[in-house]
């Protein structure tokens, strides 16, 4: 008798619930691919240090989001971090000698990957690996470098210009020991 309308109402409720799950997964967590076209290709790169880069972080070209980080792993031989990224399929003419930097949005913001285009006419394809990368800045290393250069500045200020680019891992005994930058 009234079981038809009951079933209808319950069906409506379940549909609404499932729709909500879908809205949440696709709209909020963006499980769909980055571009509207839906197609994408994957590239990888090795980094010395990925800092606090997380899955889902943006890959940006000149500040425009063109992809996202899909996975972060470890190369079993070199122990470097291997980052695989999904790039919007419509960006199919990015030079293969481009380089990647792990950057920070604002002073304390999220980390993302910035892509600086190279000049190679050969574009990146699915499975390409980018050779030129620059790691995330780790605050402790940065402070370490700063302190090293600071303590070394006093005895010989002349050496400053050479040392500041690539600090040596041998500070004075009373200075704080910096973590190796490399």
């Amino acid at each position, binding site marked *: 008798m009234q079981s038809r309308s009951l079933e209808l109402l*319950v069906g409506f*409720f379940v549909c609404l619930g499932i729709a909500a799950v879908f809205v949440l997964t696709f709209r909020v967590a963006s499980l769909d691919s980055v571009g509207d076209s839906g197609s994408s290709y994957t590239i990888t790169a090795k980094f010395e240090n990925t800092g606090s880069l997380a899955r889902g972080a943006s890959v940006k070209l000149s500040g425009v*989001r063109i992809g996202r980080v899909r996975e972060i792993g470890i190369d079993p031989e070199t122990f470097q971090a291997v980052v695989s990224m999904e790039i919007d399929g419509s960006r199919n003419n990015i030079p293969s000698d481009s380089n990647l930097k792990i950057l920070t949005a604002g002073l304390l913001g999220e980390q993302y990957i910035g892509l600086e285009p190279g000049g190679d006419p050969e574009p990146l394809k699915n499975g390409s690996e980018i050779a030129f990368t620059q790691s995330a800045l780790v605050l402790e290393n940065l402070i370490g470098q700063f302190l090293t250069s600071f303590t070394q500045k006093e005895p010989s200020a002349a050496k400053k210009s050479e040392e500041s680019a690539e600090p040596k891992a041998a500070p004075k005994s009373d200075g704080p020991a910096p973590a190796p930058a490399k």
Partner: protein
Amino acid sequence: MNFLTPATEGLRGLGRATLFLLTILAAIPGALLRPRLIIQQIYSVGNLSLIIIIISGSFIGMVLALQGYRTLVNFGAASSLGVLVALSIVRELGPVVTGLLFAGRAGTALAAEIGLMKATDQLAGMEMMAVDPIKRVIAPRFIAGLIAMPLLVSIFSMMAIGIAGGHAIGVELLGVDDGSYWSQINQSMHGGDIRDMLIKSSVFGLAISWIAVYQGYHAAPTSEGVSRATTSTVVVSSLAILALDFVLTAFMFR
């Protein structure tokens, strides 16, 4: 001797509740053969909770957006408003608030209904007609609670983040850019967050349904017994939700 009695009584209650859960679980395969009974129960625990869930979801999203905006705008981070709302809702408030509302709205109704059926000999009558009340009455209600909770939590979260909650206040009222509202959310949320939300809400759904049917089924067959069962359902399930939330969050914390 005297101070041991509450402890042993508590242990006995826990043991009885666990055995009761096992009996229900054993009755579930049989109950699944009669989907009509389950549909009826989904209607009374799910559909009838829908309004309260939608309204409270919207309000909580709106409040979060207002409060979040005031703080974020000081750091020039108003565009992160969406993230703030979405993370709080999906990770915590969605499952917890829905769970508390569900316990109050559906859990009490379950406990009172079953308790009254017991008090008026309806359960005993069924048993004498060779119909197992666990299979016929308890299991369908338990399953319905289990199904309804994750759906209600999803609806709650959708209302709070999008449609009427945070989005309405943040984007329509405070002028946060629509694009950055969503793109910031997209960047900091993963499928894993949604999965964790669904896990949490299923666990809460199980706890609430279990507590409600247990309290009803073991209520003293008097009006006072039924009223006590309803009260305990709210109290025990609320505490259980908060405690379980802590445990689950600790596990999901990466």
